[in-house]
């Protein structure tokens, strides 16, 4: 019985593994202005421009459909085989020609232009507090850069403008690419969710089996403890422990694992209680099997399907807890997670910038990953306990 969630799970895992290497941008690097919206949104601001001129391509021409960018930088080196007399010419709006740079006598021509440079502004006839790009760019007109004169033999010039828009998901308050932050977050969510649930399930299995199988005073003592732990709000405890102990990823996983085993322990215990009374366990006891042998070789395999479903159903809880703690700012700022992204959106003015692209992707990501795990857990539950399917049909 194929369920959509299994396919979705594999897609998510694949995205977590392959995503960061497929995306060219480094999630820690600033690529555009802060809070740049995604490119597919409307608006006056243009996307980032990154082109290069080289000996094989000495001309760049493009229709500029947006308002002038904040800045433009042109830098690079060209080398020549003979003594050059070349110039870099910008043809701006209305066919106006600007000579941006002229080569010297040497065969190496180093160009380093930044539109914020006052002397550069002066050469274009822009006042020191004006913006040079307003002369070079105009909405709905062509821009054209060309290397005129001697053809260079090697080298490259990079022309860059910071984008007013960026990528599929825009940028955050530090100008980082939200798409690569988002893909990085998949990994963290999966790691934390799975690792914390594995720890808590192992603990729950241990406690539940020993409690259910040993029974008596130990059982009632353990179950009292579980009741007490279940009646304390977990998030404040986690907050206090993380605040004292540290914000690292593994510490977080360990803490989450240590405080979420109670539900699994209860499920396993009730299973162990019924199994303990079953005939085959009694037979095993009568032929002298040790409790450890019965637990390990018979009860654990018996409990595994139920446990697998419990693990899968427990992952959303761990993911949500991690997201909650990160959202409160109690996570390592060097580790990108979806909760952290929402924390930064909340704390660093995404609201005043109207930056919905900082809030929707991580939030929807968390919800989708939780829904996938919930559905997978239900499917596994049905496999472990086929009566549930019949109940559905009725």
């Amino acid at each position, binding site marked *: 019985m194929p369920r959509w969630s299994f396919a979705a799970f594999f897609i998510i895992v694949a995205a977590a593994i392959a995503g960061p290497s497929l995306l060219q941008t480094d999630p820690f690097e600033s690529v555009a202005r802060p809070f740049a919206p995604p490119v597919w949104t409307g608006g006056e601001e243009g996307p980032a421009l990154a082109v290069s001129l080289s000996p094989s391509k000495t001309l760049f021409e493009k229709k500029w459909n947006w308002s002038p960018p904040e800045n433009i930088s042109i830098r690079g080196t060209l080398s020549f085989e003979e003594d050059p007399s070349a110039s870099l010419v910008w043809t701006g709006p209305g066919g106006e020609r600007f000579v941006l740079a002229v080569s010297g006598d040497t065969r190496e021509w180093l160009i380093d232009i930044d539109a914020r440079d006052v002397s550069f502004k002066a050469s274009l006839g822009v006042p020191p507090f004006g913006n040079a790009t307003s002369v070079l760019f105009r909405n709905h007109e062509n821009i054209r850069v060309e290397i005129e004169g001697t053809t260079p033999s090697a080298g490259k010039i990079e022309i860059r403008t910071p984008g007013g828009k960026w990528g599929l998901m825009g940028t955050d308050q530090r100008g980082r690419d939200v798409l690569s932050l988002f893909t990085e977050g998949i990994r963290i969510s999966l790691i934390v969710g799975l690792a914390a649930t594995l720890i808590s399930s192992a603990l729950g299995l241990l406690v539940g089996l020993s409690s259910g199988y040993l029974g008596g005073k130990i059982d009632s003592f353990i179950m*009292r403890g579980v*009741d*007490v732990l*279940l*009646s*304390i*709000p*977990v*998030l*404040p*405890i986690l*907050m*206090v*422990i*993380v*605040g*004292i*102990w540290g914000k690292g990823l593994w510490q977080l996983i360990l803490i989450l694992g240590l405080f979420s085993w109670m539900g699994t322990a209860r499920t396993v215990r009730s299973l162990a209680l019924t199994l303990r009374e079953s005939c085959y366990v009694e037979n095993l006891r009568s032929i002298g099997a040790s409790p450890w042998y019965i637990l390990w070789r018979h009860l654990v395999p018996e409990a595994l399907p139920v446990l697998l479903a419990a693990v899968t159903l427990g992952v*959303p809880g761990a993911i*949500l807890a991690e*997201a*909650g703690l990160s*959202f*409160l*700012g*109690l996570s390592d700022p060097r580790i990108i997670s979806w*909760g952290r992204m*929402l924390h930064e*959106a*909340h704390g660093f003015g995404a*609201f*005043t910038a*109207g930056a*919905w692209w900082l*809030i*929707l992707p*991580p*939030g929807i990501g*968390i*919800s989708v990953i*939780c*829904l996938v795990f*919930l559905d997978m857990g239900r499917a596994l539950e049905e496999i472990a306990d086929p009566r549930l399917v019949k109940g559905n049909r009725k």
Partner: protein
Amino acid sequence: MNSYWIRRFAGALAVLLLIITANFFLFRVMPGDAVSTIVDPRFSPEAKEKMRHLFGLDLPLHQQFFIYVRRMLSFDFGISFLSQRPVWDEIKSRIPNTLALLGTSLLLSSAIGTWLGVKAARKRGGFLEKAVIFSGSISFSFPSFFVQLVLLLLLAYTFPVFPLRGTVSIPMPSGTLPRVIDYIHHLILPAGSLVLLGFGSWAIYVRNLMVKTLGEDFILLARARGLSEDRIIWNHAFRSTLPPILTIFLLALPGIVSGAVITETVFSLHGVGKFLLDSILGHDYPSAGAAFYILGLLTIASNLAADAACTLADPRIRVGKRAER
């Protein structure tokens, strides 16, 4: 006073003791000595010893623990590192806000959830039932703060219907009525978002219980007696599902308190949860410990209250012969 209540009180006391003990040890296992963080390392050993004596750190651990328990029980939490004011004064002003947030959201979400759940159970397979199941599974997987951030973005920033942050406007409006209205205006979004997130799972529980109960024989008998449908639903079926509903409420309480901490942070409410976070981030250990203690106390108190409600609703407990299940 029967054995049920003695058991309950013993349980509450155990939780309280656990919280106090956890508090006591948590803040003592942190790296470094409390003294070394506040005294200059150039102090002479004698001065350090005097400092330790002043804080009672030279006493044996069990004696320190008893002093700690006594002070916790008398709400003497010491001085806050951040504001230099008594912690209890800081917390006192915040408790009503947290209570208001928790109270309204709990009351509304349980009322709406119960009503919808009963409605859904009456008409199996209808649109309402599907909607209830859908909203329940949504509320399990959507992180509360995300929903709240979206609401904030929509209803406070894009369409400024509600205030962006805080419990009251600054400056506060004069007069009692405008103040109350202002307070409610600030409370609508936080409490409303908690209701929005909470009622779905509530409705699913109630619906499941009701569906089960409506299939039982005594409902058939009630129908045979010719009672009105409303009477069957509310006086017979719903009445008998009350104890399990209250039990679910008990189990959900800690999660609701956790949710309040996040909600207060999102909306910058002047509440205990936000105070806990601020103290933790500011390494204000007396305040953090006290806020944690107060949140635990709130949970215990509402646990006992729900137990009392359970007693009223379940005659088996009231009579003192609770069937062992």
